[in-house]
């Protein structure tokens, strides 16, 4: 096996927070006072409230953003870095791209590195597209001659041929973005570090970016991608590393890691809806509880079961024109079904301030496996209450087709009653 192109050994990063990261003289004075008082507090809350206990650092107001991270990447690998907000992904990428340095440990990169932590950094609005291509290219580490060689290609990729001598401040935001990505995409480093770049732009552009990244990977270069978008991680990477509380929680084949990540990012089932605080919406109506059972009132849901959902809600005053939406999705957040009270109708125009709504379904044609439910309460175009992964249920196997055979979840997510037939005779023509 080749020598790893990226080797990370015991990498740790300690951050100091609150009054210790002093930026003004007054802060320094406060820092000294804080040190004297020895009371590590952040915004009034004890520091431990924000981090896992293991992350609390050795001095007050400090925490380990990364703790003893080890992994290695082989040349030509496309590796995904996943983890929740605050898991340390960005910090790791910042260290690898030399924007900041680690507190402990080391990383060895065997090749030219380019990092794309944001597209278009260093663009100067007053300069023309042409000047900015050169400037941005140089900032990203390209030589003048190299940029000249790829200039036409970059312009063509960005589709800004007619505006190349116009100051970029006159560009539309789409053109700006395309140009920025085009420059970055034409870097030819051995190691490319990418952070959430794909989260920008319209769908067509994202597709183009994804395609370009795939090309880069196919050319045998090593790519390290950080993204919250599991679909792009799945399509780009072969292997992934999951960070949790600043340490490597797991690493392995991408499907396995994405699965583990999504599994991990769910709230525990025991959390009652009334205790969920990670809601969106104006909050004038709140979901209180959600229960799912089969039509007969039992708790087991099978492929082909009719289901009954009971939702309890609470509001200060009677609710008018409320639209209840339950989205049933799988682990990777792909929506399988949506139960939408507006689409079907049936709920009265005004609902009492507190009460329950019940939704009864036809046979649930979902393959065995776990399903998650997202709750939305919408009034007009306004989200009133939204809870992601409000609850989950397991679909058990059943003899849906009456043959004792049922497709597995890995093969497909839904099933459909259907018939096959045959007819004699030779094929037409």
């Amino acid at each position: 096996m080749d020598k790893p192109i990226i080797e990370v050994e015991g990498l740790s990063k300690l951050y100091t927070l609150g009054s210790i990261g002093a930026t003004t003289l007054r802060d320094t004075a406060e820092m000294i006072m804080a040190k004297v008082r020895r009371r590590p507090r952040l915004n009034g809350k004890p520091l431990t409230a924000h981090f896992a206990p293991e992350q609390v650092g050795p001095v007050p107001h400090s925490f380990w953003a990364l703790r003893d991270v080890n992994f290695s990447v082989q040349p030509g690998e496309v590796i995904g870095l996943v983890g929740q907000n605050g898991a340390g992904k960005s910090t790791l990428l910042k260290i690898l791209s030399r924007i900041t340095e680690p507190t402990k440990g080391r990383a060895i990169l065997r090749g030219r590195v380019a990092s794309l932590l944001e597209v278009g950094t260093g663009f100067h609005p007053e300069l023309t597209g042409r000047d900015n291509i050169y400037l941005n290219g140089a900032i990203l580490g390209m030589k003048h001659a190299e940029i000249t060689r790829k200039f036409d290609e970059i312009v063509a990729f960005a589709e800004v041929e007619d505006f190349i001598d116009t100051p970029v401040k006159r560009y539309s935001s789409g053109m700006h973005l395309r140009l920025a990505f085009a420059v970055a995409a034409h870097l030819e480093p051995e190691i490319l570090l990418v952070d959430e770049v794909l989260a920008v732009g319209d769908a067509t552009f994202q597709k183009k970016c994804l395609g370009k990244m795939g090309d880069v990977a196919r050319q045998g270069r090593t790519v390290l991608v950080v993204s919250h978008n599991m679909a792009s991680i799945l399509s780009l990477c072969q292997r992934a590393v999951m960070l949790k509380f600043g340490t490597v929680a797991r690493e392995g084949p991408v499907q396995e890691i994405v699965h583990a990540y999504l599994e991990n990012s769910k709230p525990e089932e025991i959390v009652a809806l009334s205790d969920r605080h990670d809601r969106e919406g104006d909050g004038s109506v709140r979901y209180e509880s959600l229960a799912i059972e089969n039509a007969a009132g039992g708790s087991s849901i099978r492929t082909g079961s009719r289901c009954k959902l009971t939702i309890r809600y609470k509001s200060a005053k009677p609710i008018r024109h409320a639209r209840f939406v339950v989205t049933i999705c799988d682990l990777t957040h792909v929506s399988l079904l949506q139960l939408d009270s507006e689409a079907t109708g049936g709920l009265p125009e005004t609902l009492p301030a507190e009460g329950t709504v019940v939704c009864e379904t036809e046979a649930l044609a979902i393959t065995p496996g776990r399903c998650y439910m997202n709750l939305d309460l919408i009034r007009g175009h306004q989200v009133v209450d939204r809870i992601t992964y409000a609850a989950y249920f397991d679909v058990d196997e059943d003899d849906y087709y009456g043959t004792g055979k049922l497709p597995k979840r890995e093969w497909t997510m839904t099933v459909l009653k259907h018939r096959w037939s045959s007819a004699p005779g030779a094929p037409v023509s």
Partner: protein
Amino acid sequence: MKAEETAAAASMSPAPFEIIIQPNQSWLRVDWAQLWEYRDLLVLLVHREFASKYKQTILGPLWFILQPLLTSVVMTIFFGNVAKVETDGIPHVLFYLCNQLSWSYLQQNITVGGAVFTNNSILFGKVYFPRLVMPISVIASNLVACALQLVSFLIIDFGLVVFMPGIFTPGTDRMHLTPLTLVLVPLLFLHTGLLSLGVSLWMSSLTAKYRDLNQIVQLIIQFWMFASPVIFPLSDFPIKWRWLAELNPMTAILESFRLCLLGAGTLTAESLVMSILATAFLLLTGILVFQRTSRTFIDTV
């Protein structure tokens, strides 16, 4: 890197080098080779600074000349005509214009260069390149303005000699241009540039940590101006206190400029040596402090 590692790396990838990232405790480590690698960026940053500065202004690059010219006119009126400052027999206009050559260069450098971290925090947080490129590019791009000012100075000097010879004190050297001037003036600009680079590196490192200092940078420059022979020549200082003025590294620079271009100035070997030593000291310590700051600056933004 050990020999066998080098060989392994060479066989593996087309670019046989390693980047080792680790906590760097040494203050002394400056990666000069890498700075050289990024020389194209330096050129482009100079271009950016210059090209974008007066975009969408009516007079455009003329401002490079007009700003110091107007300052000199104001100084001539107030210090020359009203306060009647004694200027070594040099016409007031030329005296102040000549001082502006180095002083406005220094001032521009420190104003922009001293805020390198604060002004570029977004860029520095997103992409790596040797941070030293930034302040150096500031110093280099301002040099373009210097060249324009020098040309305008020479034109005005020549114009006065031809059309208003009466303002020159009889017996003084009117147009003081020798082949030596051609060598010395660029060297003096270099000296000013390096001095202001040293100060900028210190300023930017300190303002990165203590934002309060941003507010007093202009004040410091102003105090420094009054302590330098910008308004009065060194010869107007009481002899008793001249040594104090000569501790100021700008004294020798300002006097040398006048000596070179106008043929009148008070330059002692001590003050010149003092200035060179101070420049070297500020520059070297500045580079180290700057490097130190840039390593973890982004954590404190």
